[in-house]
């Protein structure tokens, strides 16, 4: 899987992740109703992330490959994403 750092930033913004950008990484928390529920980060080591990095980023979002593809192509919005996390028991 190929993922650009630009796309990483875009996806995190779409999910409304509370973000901190550094020169070498982006990190943040998925926050729901004022409560931090998930830590997400991504090293900005290359303009296009190697497969391993992209997979780790997907994994940090608790998404399967198919779900992540949905997120990338816009079929999975923030509300759907939160529902998915609830279904998986990641959110109460």
């Amino acid at each position, binding site marked *: 899987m190929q993922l650009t750092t630009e796309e990483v930033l875009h996806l995190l913004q779409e999910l409304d992740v509370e973000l*901190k950008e*550094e020169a*070498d*990484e982006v*990190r943040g*928390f998925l*926050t729901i109703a*004022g*409560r*931090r*529920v*998930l*830590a997400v*980060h991504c*090293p900005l*080591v*290359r303009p296009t992330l*190697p497969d*391993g*990095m992209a*997979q*780790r980023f997907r*994994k*940090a979002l608790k998404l399967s490959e198919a779900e992540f593809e949905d997120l990338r192509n816009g079929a999975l919005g923030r509300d759907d994403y939160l529902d998915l996390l609830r279904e998986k028991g990641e*959110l109460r």
Partner: protein
Amino acid sequence: MPGKAWGEKPVALVVEDREDLLELRLELLNQMGFHAIGAATYADALREFRSTPAIDIVITDIDLGESSPYDRSGLTLAREIKKRRSGLPVVGYSAAFEEGDLNRADWGVFDRHLSKGRSSTDQIRERFGEWRRIALDYRRGWLALARAELKRLQTKYEITDRDVAFFRDLLPELEGASHCAGGGEDGEGVGADELLQRAGYRLCLVPGEAVADGVAPPARTREPVPVWLRQEGDLCVAELAGYPCLYAAGDDEAGATAALLRLMGRYRADFQSSPAVPLAPGLERLRDFLDRLLG
């Protein structure tokens, strides 16, 4: 021996101020089954030592030509290394052992020594073989400590098998490894660390007192931190054992572990800067874990 797997290749830090000799020594050691990295000065050697937790042996000249014709900074380096990691084998490789420039107490700092320029090629190869053995013995001891530390942290923070569960999703080959070894669904019977090592992971300990650079407030490790390292293409990836969701990448081992420490320090600073923000249980555990590891 160049085809040896990582598990059989000790990492040697070679310190020699003469560039031509350093290159020769690195080449020979690599041929003899080491993974050799070089440094030409006391400062460079100490920097490499601090940033490369995987070093299994240090081989140093005595006269690093820095302060005077009677420079002994290699001896100072050996003492400094022994102060920080007393068990790490340090070998003196210098004409100073032949010339009587060192007294017996100085010799005692070194686990082994060899007089430069007085040994035949066969003798040198024989000694390199011996150094390789003590380096691998050291690594085995260090690895056992890392495993014990990982086990302790897993028990303390109830994170048993999280690493395997996380990595298995990323690495289909882990399934194969598990089946080959007759392991169960969770890799039982094989051992988490063995499974991961088959997938190219190496368990390392970042030493206590390692500093996370670029972090405010400053952070340093209180005690050794177990880290999984893996080479992926031209990048080295470091993942916090027990919390593999915290990972970082760099051009080499030193860069990856430094980036991981930085990330840990930054997350800890994030938690500290907003203590009133409620956290999900998983993040509370992460916060406590980072507090425990970083002072």
